[in-house]
């Protein structure tokens, strides 16, 4: 310190002087310090959203690279590239350039696959992030706006995917486009008009790839970027939620400061996500468009499935019964309308409105910054599991022909399984989840009341055998723990409360002294977490001379409690 500044604080080092010069002009020292000091709570599940952000970043970068080579046009050309089996075949310029990108651009195939994997990872991490937010109640006031933005981004991510995998104009994506066309046509009243507006005429026309392209590379990404900015801004402004635990309240955030710990970990995660996607992009083939061939309206291959995130709509379409609704005046609402437009619309509307629905039903309008454990909110958890099951049955039905083929079951049976399963299985899952939640709650209460099972069996003078229980805190005159449940995980094993010393570090030979570790363990009192833990673990250990508040049972003299009544 003394070496880098004079008595008045003016820096003497070169770097310090430059920093002062910069701050004189930009006045960033204050905001920068506030940013560096920002505290982030530490839990693995808070990183799921980051994975989505980083995947989007990779998709953006790799996608930009792809645009240098891709020609979004349905102009008919004859393929002359280096992939021999298709040479001389008539195809669209879009498919031709997708092939050239894969075979005649150095590293082009790698980039295309990286792009596709990044997109899959993007949607997948959004969904997992959403599940975390849902099941922990992080969407409650004041974060309803961010939940809504998140759901909108999920929908945009799906649109991004659909417009993206349609672009190469191969047989698979063309089949998908044909189905999109049929879905638009199926909308009552405005169907044909909507189709003509989107496709510029009858299927397939010459415009659609160009329109999907600009939506895919400009319109949707621009909206997504803006929403991501708002999403993060709100997150910073409202601060992160945290799980209940020692010292954590509704009015603080306990964790690491941004600099350097959180920044190092987040950058590490960024590189790991980049690395995993790059490895997938090179090693795991995805969407080999050259195998599908150019789109031809009279051809299709079996097991035509969309990317995984659209599979649930494919499934709902497959299992929906053949119910056209014929209205007077020879008007028809096609059966296709319900499982695609209505189901998808209802699912996402319900998802978007869930925070409001829950607030209405529970009457809980307070602000919450502490997360809930799913078991503590059994109705929400069960509803969530029910919705998830509904989604999964639809998704499985989207691949029912593959199941029928691989497991040699009747395809019609698979369809009936989907039709019945989508109605029957979710309520069963609801009831099961509800019971499991209650069971877990009860077990938490039981451990708090009677202590942890130590596995030590003791024989009493009159011959009765009892298992010795280790109470987690002070007990009342009946030997029952008086520690109340605080929404944090309850330790269930002796090792979790310091029943055993931690393992000595070192792989081939120990690199620390066992005695040193023992001392360190005893002296360990780190932050508020350890304070709490010390109180828990020290109490009741015979070696420590009994627990602090002995309650009304001096006769037990600090020995572990046997269960009573």
């Amino acid at each position, binding site marked *: 310190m003394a070496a880098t500044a004079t008595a008045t604080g003016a820096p003497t080092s070169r770097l310090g002087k430059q920093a002062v010069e910069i701050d004189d002009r930009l006045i960033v020292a204050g905001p920068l310090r506030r940013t560096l000091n920002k505290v982030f709570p530490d839990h693995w599940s808070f990183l799921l959203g980051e994975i989505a952000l980083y995947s989007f970043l990779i998709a953006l970068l790799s996608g930009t690279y792809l645009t240098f080579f891709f020609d979004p046009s349905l102009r008919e050309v004859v393929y002359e590239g280096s992939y021999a*089996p298709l040479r001389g075949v008539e195809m669209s310029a879009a498919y031709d350039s997708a092939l050239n990108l894969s075979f005649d651009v150095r590293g082009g195939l790698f980039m295309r696959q990286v792009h596709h994997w990044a997109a899959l990872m993007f949607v997948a991490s959004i969904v997992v992030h959403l599940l975390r937010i849902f099941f922990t109640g992080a969407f409650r006031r004041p974060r309803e706006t961010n939940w809504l933005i998140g759901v909108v981004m999920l929908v945009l991510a799906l649109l991004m995917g659909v417009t993206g995998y349609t672009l190469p104009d191969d047989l698979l994506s063309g089949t998908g486009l044909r189905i999109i066309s049929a879905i638009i046509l*199926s909308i009552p009243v405005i169907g044909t008009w909507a189709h*003509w507006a989107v496709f510029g005429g009858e299927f397939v026309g010459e415009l659609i790839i160009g329109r999907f392209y600009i939506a895919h590379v400009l319109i949707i990404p621009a909206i997504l970027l803006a929403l991501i900015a708002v999403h993060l801004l709100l997150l910073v402004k409202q601060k992160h939620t945290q799980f209940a635990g020692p010292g954590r309240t509704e009015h603080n955030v306990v964790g690491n400061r941004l600099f350097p710990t959180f920044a*190092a970990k987040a950058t590490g*995660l960024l590189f790991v996500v980049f*690395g995993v996607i790059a490895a997938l992009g090179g090693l795991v083939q995805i969407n080999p468009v050259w195998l599908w061939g150019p789109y031809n309206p009279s051809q*299709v291959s079996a097991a*035509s499935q969309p990317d995984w995130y659209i599979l649930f709509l494919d499934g709902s379409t*497959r299992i929906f019964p053949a119910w056209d609704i014929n209205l007077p005046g020879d008007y*028809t609402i096609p059966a296709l309308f319900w499982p695609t437009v209505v189901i998808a619309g209802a699912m996402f509307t319900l998802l978007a409105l869930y925070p409001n629905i829950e607030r209405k039903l529970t009457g809980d309008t307070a602000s919450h910054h502490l997360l809930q454990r799913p078991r503590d909110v059994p109705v929400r958890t069960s509803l969530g599991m029910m919705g998830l099951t509904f989604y999964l049955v639809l998704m499985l039905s989207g691949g029912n022909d593959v199941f029928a083929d691989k497991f040699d079951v009747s395809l019609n049976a698979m369809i009936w399984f989907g039709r019945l399963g989508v109605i029957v299985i979710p309520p069963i899952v609801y009831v099961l989840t509800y019971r499991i939640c209650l069971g877990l709650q009860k077990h938490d209460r039981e451990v708090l009341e009677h202590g942890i099972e130590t596995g030590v069996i003791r024989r009493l003078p009159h011959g009765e055998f009892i298992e010795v229980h280790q109470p987690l805190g002070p007990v009342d005159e009946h030997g029952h723990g008086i520690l109340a449940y605080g929404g944090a995980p309850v330790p269930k094993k002796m090792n979790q409360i310091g029943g055993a010393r931690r393992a000595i570090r070192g792989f081939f030979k120990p690199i620390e002294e066992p005695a040193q570790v023992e001392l360190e363990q005893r002296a360990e009192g780190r932050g508020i977490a350890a304070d709490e833990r010390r109180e828990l673990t020290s109490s009741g250990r015979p070696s420590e001379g009994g627990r602090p508040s002995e309650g009304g049972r001096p006769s037990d003299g600090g020995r572990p409690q046997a269960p009573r009544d």
Partner: protein
Amino acid sequence: MTTHDTRPGSSGGADTPGPLYGGPDDDYTPEQLAAMPREDLDRLGARYDGVEILHVDPGPEPGSPMEKRAIRQVGLLFTLAGLCAFAFVVVYVGSGWFFPDWQWDVTETGWSAFFTPLLGLTMGLSLALVGVGLVLYSKKLLPHETAVQDKHDGSHFDRVTTGATLVGGLHNSGLARRKLITRSLGFMGGGLGLMLLMPLGGLINNPNTGNPLGRTAWAEGVRLVRNDGSPIRPGDQEPGSLETVFPAVAGGNRQSDAATMLIRLRPAQLAEARPREGQDEFGYGDYVAYSKICTHAGCPVSLYEQETSRILCPCHQSQFDVTQGAKPVFGPATRSLPQLPITVDDEGYFVARGDYPEAVGPTYWNRERI
């Protein structure tokens, strides 16, 4: 005007900060700050931002075996990451130079088949190793601190003062009293919004002019040809077989609604065939022709299982029975596949006797009306 001009309204003169200037600089003089050690300054700034550092676990002791081991691990990871990155460069640049060519050939299983996987492996490993190195660094070498930051709810002071500024501005604008302005503003806003939306009208086309959805290239006398353009005689197909045919017009085999399945029924199928009402005469002998475009979502129905007389659409598993006028017997489709009336021309080749009697492809709102 010079910078020393002190007249009212000038920018120069005795330029001293006003009474609102200040902040923490008023509380801590540079001398005070200079006398504080770095750790205290760090905590002072943190405290100023509402952050309390509760506990710092200082990380491994310098020079201890723990630290040495961690440094070795992190260093090794970063070195490996660098090596992988260089390997990527070597593979990328070297292919076709000192390595065999990277361009893939269907028959080849050598270097070019490994080019893309090697790119992925080297880049993936390199990036992931950097990430793991950083995580290990922060876990094993950085001090672990536990910090608490206060979370503030909205400030009452902020609300009241902001509200006063907003309401004051609105009040000064007089919009509440000056009704003509509010109304004309509303009128203008509506008009402008509508005007800016108007260019989207270029997207609107009338789907009903010329009935494009109800019409295909099939017409009386148009020959049924294969994908390669060759016409078909009744003797060309085995009983029980299916061939995809197209109208003999320019680009007929690329049209999205014209693809047709020409099916020759087996005698057993023919015996139990029950065509749709009014379409008994649509076939020719033991031949029938149905649209290949599924009436559900428009996929080409392709999988013909002649033992059961069923045609399956691979997209959503609708099944049609060719002996019952291609009626849907299972799955989500609701309508029969339209049947093309066919006959044989003077030269003995199959021709259509007209267009399909109904719209082919997926159902839509006013299909029955056109």
